[in-house]
C-alpha cells in the first residue's frame, strides 16, 4: 500500500522527515519497503510568467519570450504557440535535468540566446500531452518550485503491511501508529455532513438476509449530484496512492477507503429496482456482469448485494455494471458495509478476483468504520459533486459485536520478553494504541481491544504490542540454559557426512535436484524386475504442478541424475561423475494416519558415471568409466563407513543392463544396486551408451556402518607372498574362487587379492585366466618356507579339484 506523507499531515500536526518516518514505522512492525519522492524529477523546474513574446527574427516556427522566473527576467526561445503573454508556464532553469534525462543548458538558437526551456506536460513526465506548454493555474507565484505548485512535494511510502494488520491499510491506520510512535494526538474530526430535511429511509431500504456474511450495512443517500472530474488535489492524492481518477463520485469512494480503510460502494440509486438493497446468498442460475464487463455465473455461496430483483454487486469484492455510477447518475446510495472475511476470501478466490476492497475485508475491517465512511463520503459529495445529502443514515447491524477483552497478568510482558518493563509503561503504550483498561483484577488487568484491532485476542498479542512500540532493540540478548535437551548426534548425520566426503574424494560432484520430475521418466528408471521395464509406475502425483514436466515425485534418484547427464553432455562434458543424496517418494498404503507420513521418503545415495575415467589431459589416458568404476565408488563409500566390502550378485532388474548389474549385500542387509544403464533405456531417453549407475539406501548404510571401529592389533611377523593363477570358464566368479582359497588356506592366508584377469590368446575361447596374490602370515611366529610351500600346494590342489581349474604357473 502507498501512503502519502502530505495526506498523513491532515491527521497529525507534525511528522519526521520521510526517511526517519519510514524507519520508525518499519521498526514498529509496519514495514516501509521504499520511499518515493514524486517531485524529485521536477527539481530545477519553476513557475514562470510570460511577460513578452516576439517572433524569432530568423525562424518562423520559434518565438523569443521574456519570462519572469521569480529570480529575474530571462530570455527563452520557445517553439510552442499555445500561450499568451501573462500566462504561467513551467520553466526548466539552466542545469535542471528533465525526466527523460535532458540536461538544460544555455543555448543560442539561430543567433538568439536562450536561458532555459519552457516545458510541455509530456516533457515533465506529468502527462502524455505534448501539444504545447503546460499552462498553470493563474493563482501561482513565479519562482515557486513546480513540484510544490502541483502538490508533488510529497513523499510516498511504499508499505508492506502484514496480513494481520488490516487496520493499517489506510492513512488513518498509519497515522494512528505514528501518533503513538511520536507521542502526539491524532487530529481526527467527525465529518460535518450537511443534510437536507428529507429522511434517508424514505428514499431507500436495506434488508440483510445473511447476518453471517454481512455484519453491518451502513448507507447514505446523496441526491442532485453532478458527475464530473475531481479537483486537482484529489486526483493528485489518488495518483500518489497509485489509483486512477475516474469521476468525482467514484474518486470520493476510493479516497475515503484510502483515508479511513473502509471500502465503499456507490450505487446509482435510480437503477436499484424497488429502491432497495437486499443482502443474501446468490440463487441458482443467477448471473452478474461485473465492472470489468465480465458476465459471471454466481455460485450458491456467493454473497451478493441485490436490489428488489437481482444481484448488483459481489459483496465486498466487486461492483456490478448495471448499477454503476455513470455520467447521468443523479442519486447515489453509498454503501459502507462490513463483510465477513472468510466469505469474501472464498468468493474472491472462486471468481479469481483480488480487489482493494476484498484485500481489506479479507484482513478484517473495523466494524465501526462503515457509518464514519459513508458520512465522510457524503460530506465530500456535497462539497465536490453538488450533492444534497438526505437526513440520517441507514445502519443495519443485526448482531453488534462485543468488544474483545484480553487478560494480561502483571509482569507477563517482562516475563515473556526477558526485559524489565514497568507496568506503567505497559499501560501507557496500550492506552496510546487505543486499548482500554476495563478492570484491574488481582495480579492482572483486563484490556478492551479497540474495534479496529481485529488481530488481537491473546495476552501474547499485547506483549507484542508493547515490544514493538518500545522497540525490539530494548530487549537484551541472553542465552538460555542448556538443560537436559541435549541429545547425541544421530548416526545418520555422521553417515551422510562420510558418504559425501567419500564420494567427493572419488571425484563425484554433488547435485541437488527438484523432487518432482517428468512422469515419462519413471517407467524407464524405477528399479524393479526387468520384465516390468516401461510399464506404469505408481507415484506421488501433484494436483497443481507448475508444468507437466514437474508433476510427479521421483521414485528413483536416476530420474534426476540422468537428465543431469543429458544437460552436461549437451554442454560438452566428456567426463561425468555425479551423485545426489536425497529422498525418493513412495506411496505408503498405511500412511496418513496419526503421525505416520502419507508417503515413505527413504533417503538414497545415487551415483552416475560416464565418459572418461579421468578428465582429458596428458596424464589422463583414454579409459572410460565402466561397471567396476561404479562398484569401486560404492566400495569406497563402504570403506569410509567402516563397513565390510559387500558381496555382489548379478541381477535382472530395471533400469540396468542384465549382463552388467548387481545387488550389493552386506550380511543380511541389502544396500542397493550398481550397474550399467540398460541400452534400451539409454536409447529411449536419448542418452549415450555406457552410463554407470548406483543407488544405495541410506538407512541400510547406517545399519552396516561402524563409525568407531576397535583396533585390530598389527601382526609384526614377516609375511610371505605367493601368486596363484588359474584358468577357468569365463562364467566362473572370482569371488567363489577367492572363497575357496580363503577357506582352504585358513587363518594362515591373511589376504587374497585378484591382480590380473585375462581373456584371449593363447587361452581357448570361453576361458579366462585369474591371477591371485596371496599373503601368508601367522599371528604368533615367523612362517617357515616349507610350511608356506605345503599350504600353497594344498590350496592349488583344492582349487583345481573343486573348480576344475587348470593351474598355470
Amino acid at each position, binding site marked *: 500500500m502507498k501512503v502519502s506523507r502530505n495526506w498523513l499531515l491532515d491527521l497529525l500536526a507534525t511528522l519526521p522527515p520521510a526517511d526517519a518516518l519510514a524507519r520508525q514505522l518499519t521498526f514498529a512492525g509496519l514495514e516501509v519497503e521504499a520511499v518515493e519522492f514524486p517531485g524529485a524529477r521536477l527539481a530545477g523546474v519553476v513557475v514562470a510568467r510570460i511577460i513578452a513574446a516576439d517572433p524569432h527574427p530568423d525562424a518562423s516556427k520559434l518565438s523569443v519570450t521574456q519570462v519572469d522566473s521569480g529570480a529575474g527576467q530571462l530570455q527563452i526561445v520557445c517553439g510552442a504557440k499555445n500561450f499568451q503573454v501573462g500566462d504561467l508556464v513551467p520553466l526548466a532553469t539552466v542545469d535542471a535535468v528533465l525526466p527523460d534525462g535532458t540536461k538544460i543548458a544555455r543555448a543560442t538558437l539561430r543567433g538568439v540566446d536562450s536561458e532555459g526551456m519552457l516545458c510541455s506536460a509530456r516533457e515533465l513526465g506529468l502527462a502524455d500531452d505534448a501539444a504545447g506548454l503546460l499552462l498553470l493555474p493563474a493563482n501561482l507565484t513565479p519562482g515557486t518550485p513546480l513540484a510544490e505548485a502541483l502538490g508533488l512535494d510529497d513523499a510516498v511510502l511504499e508499505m508492506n503491511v502484514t496480513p494481520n494488520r488490516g487496520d493499517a491499510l489506510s492513512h488513518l491506520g498509519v497515522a494512528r501508529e505514528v501518533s503513538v510512535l511520536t507521542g502526539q494526538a491524532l487530529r481526527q474530526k467527525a465529518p460535518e455532513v450537511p443534510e437536507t430535511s428529507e429522511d434517508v429511509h424514505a428514499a431507500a431500504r436495506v434488508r440483510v438476509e445473511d447476518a453471517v456474511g454481512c455484519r453491518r450495512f451502513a448507507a447514505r443517500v446523496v441526491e442532485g449530484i453532478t458527475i464530473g472530474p475531481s479537483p486537482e488535489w484529489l486526483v493528485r492524492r489518488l495518483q500518489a496512492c497509485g489509483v486512477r481518477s475516474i469521476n468525482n463520485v467514484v474518486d470520493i469512494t476510493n479516497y475515503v477507503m484510502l483515508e479511513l480503510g473502509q471500502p465503499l460502494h456507490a450505487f446509482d440509486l435510480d437503477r436499484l429496482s424497488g429502491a432497495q438493497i437486499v443482502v443474501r446468498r446468490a440463487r441458482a442460475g443467477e448471473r452478474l456482469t461485473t465492472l470489468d464487463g465480465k458476465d459471471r455465473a454466481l455460485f450458491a455461496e456467493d454473497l451478493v448485494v441485490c436490489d428488489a430483483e437481482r444481484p448488483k454487486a459481489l459483496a465486498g469484492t466487486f461492483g456490478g455494471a448495471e448499477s454503476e455510477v455513470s455520467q447521468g447518475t443523479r442519486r447515489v446510495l453509498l454503501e459502507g458495509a462490513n463483510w465477513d472475511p472468510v466469505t469474501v476470501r472464498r468468493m474472491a478466490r472462486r471468481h479469481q478476483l483480488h480487489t482493494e476492497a476484498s484485500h481489506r475485508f479479507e484482513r478484517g475491517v473495523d466494524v465501526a468504520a462503515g457509518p464514519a465512511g459513508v458520512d465522510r463520503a457524503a460530506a465530500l459529495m456535497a462539497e465536490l459533486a453538488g450533492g444534497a445529502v438526505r437526513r440520517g443514515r441507514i445502519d443495519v447491524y443485526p448482531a453488534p459485536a462485543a468488544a474483545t477483552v484480553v487478560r494480561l497478568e502483571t509482569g507477563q510482558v517482562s516475563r515473556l520478553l526477558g526485559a524489565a518493563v514497568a507496568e506503567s509503561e505497559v499501560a501507557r503504550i496500550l492506552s496510546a494504541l487505543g486499548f482500554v483498561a476495563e478492570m484491574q483484577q488481582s495480579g492482572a488487568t483486563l484490556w478492551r481491544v479497540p474495534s479496529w484491532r481485529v488481530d488481537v485476542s491473546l495476552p501474547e498479542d499485547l506483549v507484542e504490542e508493547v515490544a514493538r512500540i518500545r522497540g525490539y532493540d530494548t530487549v537484551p540478548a541472553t542465552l538460555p540454559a542448556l538443560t537436559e535437551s541435549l541429545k547425541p548426534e544421530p548416526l545418520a548425520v555422521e553417515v551422510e557426512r562420510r558418504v559425501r566426503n567419500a564420494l567427493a574424494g572419488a571425484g563425484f560432484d554433488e547435485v541437488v535436484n527438484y523432487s518432482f520430475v517428468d512422469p515419462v521418466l519413471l517407467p524407464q528408471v524405477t528399479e524393479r524386475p526387468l520384465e516390468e521395464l516401461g510399464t506404469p509406475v505408481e507415484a506421488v502425483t501433484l494436483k497443481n504442478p507448475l508444468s507437466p514436466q514437474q508433476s510427479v515425485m521421483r521414485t528413483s534418484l536416476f530420474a534426476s541424475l540422468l537428465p543431469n547427464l543429458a544437460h552436461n553432455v549437451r554442454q560438452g562434458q566428456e567426463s561425468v561423475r555425479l551423485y545426489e543424496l536425497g529422498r525418493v517418494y513412495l506411496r505408503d498404503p498405511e500412511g496418513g494416519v496419526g*503421525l505416520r*507420513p502419507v508417503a515413505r521418503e527413504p533417503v538414497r545415495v545415487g551415483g552416475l558415471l560416464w565418459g572418461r575415467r579421468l578428465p582429458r589431459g596428458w596424464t589422463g589416458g583414454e579409459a572410460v568409466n565402466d561397471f567396476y568404476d561404479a562398484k569401486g565408488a560404492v566400495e569406497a563409500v563402504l570403506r569410509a563407513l567402516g563397513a565390510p566390502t559387500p558381496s555382489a550378485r548379478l541381477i535382472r532388474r530395471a533400469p540396468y543392463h542384465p549382463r552388467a548389474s548387481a545387488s550389493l549385500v552386506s550380511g543380511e542387509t541389502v544396500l542397493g544396486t550398481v550397474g550399467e544403464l540398460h541400452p534400451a533405456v539409454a536409447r529411449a531417453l536419448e542418452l549415450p551408451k555406457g552410463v554407470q549407475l548406483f543407488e544405495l539406501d541410506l538407512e541400510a548404510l547406517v545399519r552396516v556402518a561402524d563409525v568407531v571401529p576397535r583396533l585390530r592389533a598389527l601382526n609384526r611377523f614377516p609375511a610371505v607372498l605367493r601368486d596363484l593363477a588359474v584358468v577357468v570358464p569365463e562364467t566362473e566368479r572370482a569371488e567363489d574362487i577367492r572363497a575357496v582359497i580363503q577357506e582352504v588356506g585358513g587363518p594362515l592366508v591373511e589376504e587374497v587379492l585378484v591382480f590380473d584377469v585375462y581373456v584371449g590368446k593363447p587361452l581357448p575361447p570361453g576361458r579366462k585366466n585369474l591371477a591371485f596374490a596371496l599373503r601368508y602370515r601367522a599371528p604368533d611366529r615367523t612362517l617357515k618356507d616349507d610350511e608356506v610351500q605345503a599350504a600353497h600346494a594344498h590350496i592349488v590342489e583344492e582349487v583345481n579339484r573343486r573348480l576344475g581349474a587348470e593351474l598355470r604357473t
Partner: protein
Amino acid sequence: MRDRLEGLLTSAREEVRRAADAAQVETLRVRYLGRKGELAQVLGGMGKLSPEDRRSVGEVANRVKAELEALLAGAVRAVEEAALQAELAGPPLDVTLPGRQQPSGHRHLVSRTLEDVIRSFQRLGFDVFTGPEVELDALNFEALNIPADHPARDMQDTFYVDAPWSKAPADQVLLRTHTSPGQIRAMRSRPPPLRIVVPGKAYRVDSDATHTPMFHQIEGLLVDRGITFADLKGTLTAFVTSFFGADRKTRFRPSYFQFTEPSAEMDVSCGTCAGKGCRVCKFTGWLEILGCGMVHPNVLTAGGYDASQLTGFAWGMGVERIAMLRHGLDDIRSLFENDIRFLEQF
C-alpha cells in the same frame, strides 16, 4: 717382485685414470684387488721368498695394496660425482605441464551451506530432527495456527498431492510449504525440553530469479520453562557470530507469522560493505536473514505441550538465500541446473 708390485701400481694408476664409468672402475677393482686379481697373483709367490725378503716385500705389498684400494675408492667417488653432475646437468622437466589428475569432487552449495548452518546450531546444543515432505494440511497449516481461508495462506502458495492410496482425507495432502510441521512432529514425539533444528526441502508454487518451486529451509525450535524473547535474540545472535563471524551485527524488526507471537525478522549487517551500504544489501547495510518469534500458545497446544507452563521460540531461514549471499549468486535457478561448470566452482 718389488718391481712387479710397483709396476702393478703404475699400470693401475694409468688405467684408473682412463676409466670412464662405475662399471669400468669395478672391473679394475676386480682385476687388481679381487680374490684372483693381479695383486693376489703376485702375492701368491710370497711363499717362495726367504723370511727376510718376505718381510720387506710384505711391507711393500701392504703399501701397494693400500694405495690400490685408495686409488679405486677415489675412482668410485669420482665417477659417482661425475654421474651426479651429469644427472644434474641434464634437461629439466617441463614444469609448466599440468599436474597428474587426481579425482576430486565438489559438494553442492546448498548441501554444504545447510551443513554449515547445522554445525553452528549444533554448537549451541541443537539436535537435528527431520520430518516428511509429503505432509498433511493439518500439520503444515492447521496445527501452526493457520486455519483454512486465512490470508496468511496467500504467503505460501501450495502444491497439493493427489493421494488416493492414503488414509488421510482427500485434499488434505500437500508438499510442505515450510519445514515448520517438523515442529509439531517433534513436540508430539518428544517430551520437553526441546532444542531442535529441522533442515530440509520445502515447496511453493513460485518460479523466478529469486524463487524456485523447491527450496531448502532450516527451522529451529527451543521450548522449555521460562524461555524469553531475550533468549531468542541471544541464541540467534550467537548463531550469527558462529556462522557469519564475530564482526557481524544483528537487528530485530517486528514482523508477522501465524505461528509466533511476538514475531520478528532478523537482519545481519552486510558482510560485503561492513554495513556501509552496497549493491548486495541494496544500500541498506543490512541483509534480511530469517524470521523468528516466540512460539504461539496455540502451536504449543497443537504439539501437545502445556502452554501455561512452557514457552519457546522458533525461527526459520532459507538456505539458498544464505548460499547466494555468501557466494555472490544472483539467480537461484542456477543452483538446480547442476551444470558441472557451476558445481566445480564451489
